[in-house]
C-alpha cells in the first residue's frame, strides 16, 4: 500500500499541531498563562483604584461661600451656619478646610486650613490662566514608565518562555532519538518550520490574549483614555512581536540542535538569551533617551520593543515603523535560512556540544 507524502504545508501543520497539542496539555503552561493574564488584569484594576481613590476635598462653608463651593462641583461641601462652626469642623478634622466670605480678600473668600495651606482646595478655587503648548504634547511620565516596562516585560517573558519551550522540544527529539525517524520521514526544514510555527502561534496567541485582557480591563474600568493613547503602539507591538519572535524561535531551535542533553541547553542558548534581554533592559533604562530608542527601534532584535515605544512617545514618523518592520522581516528570513542549516547539521551529532563552525559547514 502506498501513501503519497504530505505536502510541505500539511506536514508543517501536522508538526505545528502536535507542538500546540502537547503544550496545551501541559498544566504548567496553562497555569503560567492564566497567572500572566491575572497579573495584567490585576495591575490595571489596582492602578484604577489607586488613581481614583482621591475623593474630592471636604470643606465646610457658610452662606454664599457654600453656594460658590457647590458650584465648583469639585468639593465635598458641608454647609454650616457660622464661621465658628466652620473652623471648629476644620480643627476637629471633620473637613479639610473651611471657606467663608471675606470682603477684604481679592477673591471675596477666605480659606481656613489646619496645619498647612489646603493646596487642593486652593487649586479648585484658582482661576487657571490660558495655556498653549508650542511643541507636541508629551506623554504622562508615569504612563511612559508603565508602557516601557509593559512592552519590555511582555516581550522578554514571552520570548524567553516560548524560546525555552522550542529549545526543549528540539533537544527532547534529539535526546530521545526520535529525530532520526522524523528526519527519515520529513525534510528537516519542514520539521523546523512546524516547530517554529506551532510555538509562534502559541506565543502570539498569548500576547494577543494579554493585549485583549489589557484592553478590556482598561475599558471596563473606564480608563479608555489610556487605551486610546497606547492603542496604536500596542498594535505595532503585536505586529513586530510576530516577526521578531519567528527570528528568535529559529535561533533557539538552532542553538538547541547543537546540544544532546537538556542539561547543556543553558550554555548553548546564552547568546540568544542575551539578545532577548538587551531590549528589555534597554527600553527601561533608556526610555527617555531618544537616540538610544531610535537605534533600538531599527536593530531587528530590539525593534519589537523599541519601535512601539517610539510610536507611543510620538517620536516616530509614520513611515518609520514600516521601514523597521521591513528590516525585521528581511533579517528574520536570513536568520531562518542560517538557523535551519545549523539545525539540520546539528540534529544527528550526538555527544558533546557541536561547534557552531562545524554546524554551519555541515
Amino acid at each position: 500500500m502506498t501513501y503519497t507524502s504530505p505536502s510541505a504545508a500539511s506536514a508543517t501543520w501536522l508538526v505545528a499541531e502536535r507542538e500546540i497539542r502537547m503544550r496545551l496539555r501541559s498544566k504548567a503552561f496553562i497555569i503560567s498563562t492564566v497567572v500572566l493574564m491575572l497579573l495584567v488584569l490585576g495591575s490595571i484594576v489596582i492602578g484604577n483604584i489607586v488613581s481614583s481613590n482621591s475623593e474630592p476635598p471636604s470643606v465646610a462653608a457658610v452662606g454664599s461661600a457654600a453656594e460658590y463651593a457647590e458650584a465648583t462641583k469639585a468639593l465635598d461641601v458641608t454647609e454650616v451656619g457660622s464661621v465658628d462652626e466652620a473652623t471648629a469642623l476644620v480643627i476637629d478634622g471633620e473637613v479639610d478646610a473651611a471657606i467663608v466670605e471675606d470682603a477684604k480678600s481679592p477673591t471675596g473668600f477666605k480659606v481656613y486650613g489646619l496645619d498647612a495651606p489646603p493646596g487642593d482646595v486652593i487649586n479648585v478655587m484658582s482661576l487657571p490662566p490660558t495655556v498653549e503648548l508650542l511643541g507636541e504634547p508629551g506623554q504622562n511620565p508615569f504612563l511612559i514608565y508603565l508602557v516601557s516596562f509593559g512592552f519590555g516585560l511582555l516581550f522578554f517573558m514571552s520570548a524567553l518562555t516560548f524560546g525555552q519551550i522550542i529549545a526543549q522540544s528540539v533537544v527532547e527529539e534529539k535526546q530521545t532519538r526520535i529525530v532520526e525517524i522524523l528526519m527519515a520521514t520529513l525534510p528537516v526544514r519542514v520539521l523546523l518550520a512546524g516547530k517554529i510555527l506551532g510555538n509562534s502561534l502559541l506565543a502570539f496567541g498569548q500576547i494577543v490574549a494579554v493585549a485583549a485582557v489589557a484592553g478590556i480591563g482598561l475599558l471596563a474600568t473606564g480608563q479608555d483614555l489610556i487605551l486610546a493613547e497606547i492603542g496604536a503602539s500596542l498594535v505595532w507591538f503585536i505586529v513586530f512581536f510576530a516577526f521578531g519572535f519567528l527570528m528568535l524561535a529559529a535561533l533557539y531551535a538552532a542553538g538547541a540542535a547543537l546540544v544532546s542533553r537538556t542539561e547543556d541547553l543553558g550554555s548553548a542558548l546564552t547568546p540568544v538569551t542575551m539578545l532577548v534581554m538587551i531590549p528589555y533592559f534597554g527600553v527601561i533604562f533608556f526610555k527617555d533617551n531618544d537616540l538610544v530608542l531610535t537605534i533600538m527601534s531599527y536593530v531587528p532584535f530590539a525593534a519589537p520593543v523599541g519601535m512601539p515605544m517610539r510610536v507611543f512617545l510620538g517620536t516616530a514618523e509614520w513611515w518609520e515603523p514600516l521601514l523597521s518592520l521591513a528590516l525585521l522581516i528581511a533579517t528574520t528570513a536570513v536568520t531562518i535560512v542560517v538557523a535551519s542549516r545549523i539545525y539540520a547539521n546539528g540534529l544527528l551529532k550526538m555527544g558533546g556540544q557541536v561547534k557552531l563552525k562545524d554546524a554551519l559547514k555541515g
Partner: protein
Amino acid sequence: MRAPAPTRSVSHMNSSLLEVHNVTRSFGDRAVLKDVSFAVRGGRITGFVGSNGAGKTTTMRVILGVLAPDSGSVTLDGSPLGEGQRTRFGYMPEERGLYPKMKLAEQLIYLGRLHGMSAEQAKASTDALLERLSLTERADTLLEALSLGNQQRAQIAAALVHEPEVLVLDEPFSGLDPIAVESVLAVLKDRADAGVPVLFSSHQLDIVERLCDDLVVIADGQIRASGSREQLRSEHARDRFELQVDGDAGWLRNEKGVEVLEFAGGYALFEVDSPATAQRVLKTALAQSSVQRFTPSQPSLATIFKEVIK
C-alpha cells in the same frame, strides 16, 4: 490518501528492488563508506552484517536520506530516491526513541499521518498493529510509562504503521527479550512475504543465520561479500566433512589427502583434497565400525564472516 497510480500495488511488489550504488561518505577526513554497492531484493530478508564501526548505521542513514552521500546514489526499482519518496520506507534507527510524553496510539497515528495517511487510515493501521503486537490495552498509555519490552514493540510499530514498501531496521533485535524477538521476527517475515525488501543489520550472527535469505557483509566501510546465504556458503565451503563413528577415529590422521581440523574420540572434522578421498574415507570408516554420521560441513556464518573481513 493513496497515491493515484504511479507506484506498484502489493501483488507486483515481488520485483521491488532497492539498490545502493557506489556510495561514499566521509566525516571530516575519516572515510566511513568506500564505494559501497549492494542490492536488497523484494520478498527477501537481507541481513547486513559487520563489526561495530564498520559503516552499517551510516549506510542505513544514507539509504533513508537522513545523511547525504558524498557520491553515489540509492535507487528503488531503478529510479533514484528523491525527497518525498522515502515516506514509503519504514525505518527503525539503532538508537530507539519515541516521544516519551505522548500516548502510544496517538504517537503512531501522528507518525502515520506524517507519512501521508489520512487520520482514519492512520487510526485503522494503528489499531491493527497494536492488536498484532498485543499492545491494544496500552493504546492510551504514555510511552514513558510502558515497560521496556513494550517500548521495543512500540518502536517496531512505529516503523510499520504506514505500511511501508521498504523496511530498513538497524539492529532490530538488540536488547530484545526472547519473546519480543519472536514477535518482531514474525512481523518481519510477514512483510517480506508481502513482497517488501527487508534490510536489517545485526552483529548477532546466529540470528542473522536463522532469519535472513540474503547477506551483505561490510567491513571498514567496504562491502566484503554479498549474495544469498546458500551462495555465500557454497562459495566459502571447503571440502570439509564431519564424521561420527562408534569407537575411535584416530586412524583418520594417517589417511592420505586428509587434514584433521578437530578431533574428539569418535568425532572428527576434516578437510579432503578431493571428493574421491572423501569416498575412500567413508568406506574405511564403514569397514572399521558403524558410522553414525558422515556429512559435508557447511561453514557457519561466523566462519564466513571471519574469513571475509580479514
